């Protein structure tokens, strides 16, 4: 599959999201992800970034949910979307 540009969901997950989240899981702390201030998100960017944590980084839904807090004032529904992507990825993995 072609990566969707230099700033794809996969690149974001591999380079930023997963390492930070991994550190938070090890320290038992919470990673706050603020989605505001961007030009916008493609559906597949968020799906790959968050759903990929379960599919490719072998994290569990429970681990992720207890160590991240997603914030969006500009598009609050994105928080629900991300929860859905995580839930769907968990079901697919099962």
């Amino acid at each position, binding site marked *: 599959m072609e990566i969707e540009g230099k700033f794809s969901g996969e690149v974001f997950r591999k380079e930023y999201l997963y390492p930070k989240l991994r550190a938070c899981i090890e320290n038992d702390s919470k990673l706050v992800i603020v989605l505001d201030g961007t030009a*916008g998100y493609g559906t*597949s*960017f968020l799906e790959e970034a968050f759903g990929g944590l379960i599919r490719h980084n072998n994290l569990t839904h429970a681990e992720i949910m207890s160590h991240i807090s997603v914030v969006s004032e500009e*598009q609050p529904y994105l928080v629900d979307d991300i929860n859905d992507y995580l839930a769907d990825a968990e079901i697919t993995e099962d």
Partner: protein
Amino acid sequence: MVQLAMVTLNRLFRLVLLTLVIVSLAIVLKMTDIPHIKIEPVISPTHALSIVVTAAFAIGISLLFEPSRSKNSSEKTLKIERLKTLIESIDKLQSEIADGRASLYYVNSFTKGIETKLRLILGTEPALNKELENLQKELRGLNNLLTSTPADPIKDADVKVVKGQYNYSTSRIAEINHSLESISNSIFSTQLKINAG
């Protein structure tokens, strides 16, 4: 502020013009002899005072109450005009994807751009909350149609990324067009509601 001052001046000018027309009419009536209409040769001070007081009241009311009405009217016009630019953006996207391709950045930022503007235009008006909510739902659906590529590669996917561009299947283009038309129509209905309000 400048616009409000212009409107006030415009109204004052119209009042002065109206007074001039009435005075001219009185002079013409005085010069010509029209049956059943009599102009007093001498105007009493009481009558003159009555005219001046009435005119002062008219000008006072106009200056006190008309600016707020003008302000509302200007806001309505601005909102309707701004919504018109959103319909134009939607039309532009429709022609962009007619050949089945559109750049990643343009498409990814499209729905958020429209939504941000809609919140600015409609967000301050409680009577338009429902319209805003419905438009946000429609935009969310459009974003899914535009940017949802499959997690695993599929040869005949409806949305693919090729050389930094989204490539759409014919059926997906039809779905996107349908969604864009629907959003345009919803914005138009909102324009009508603002105009009527």
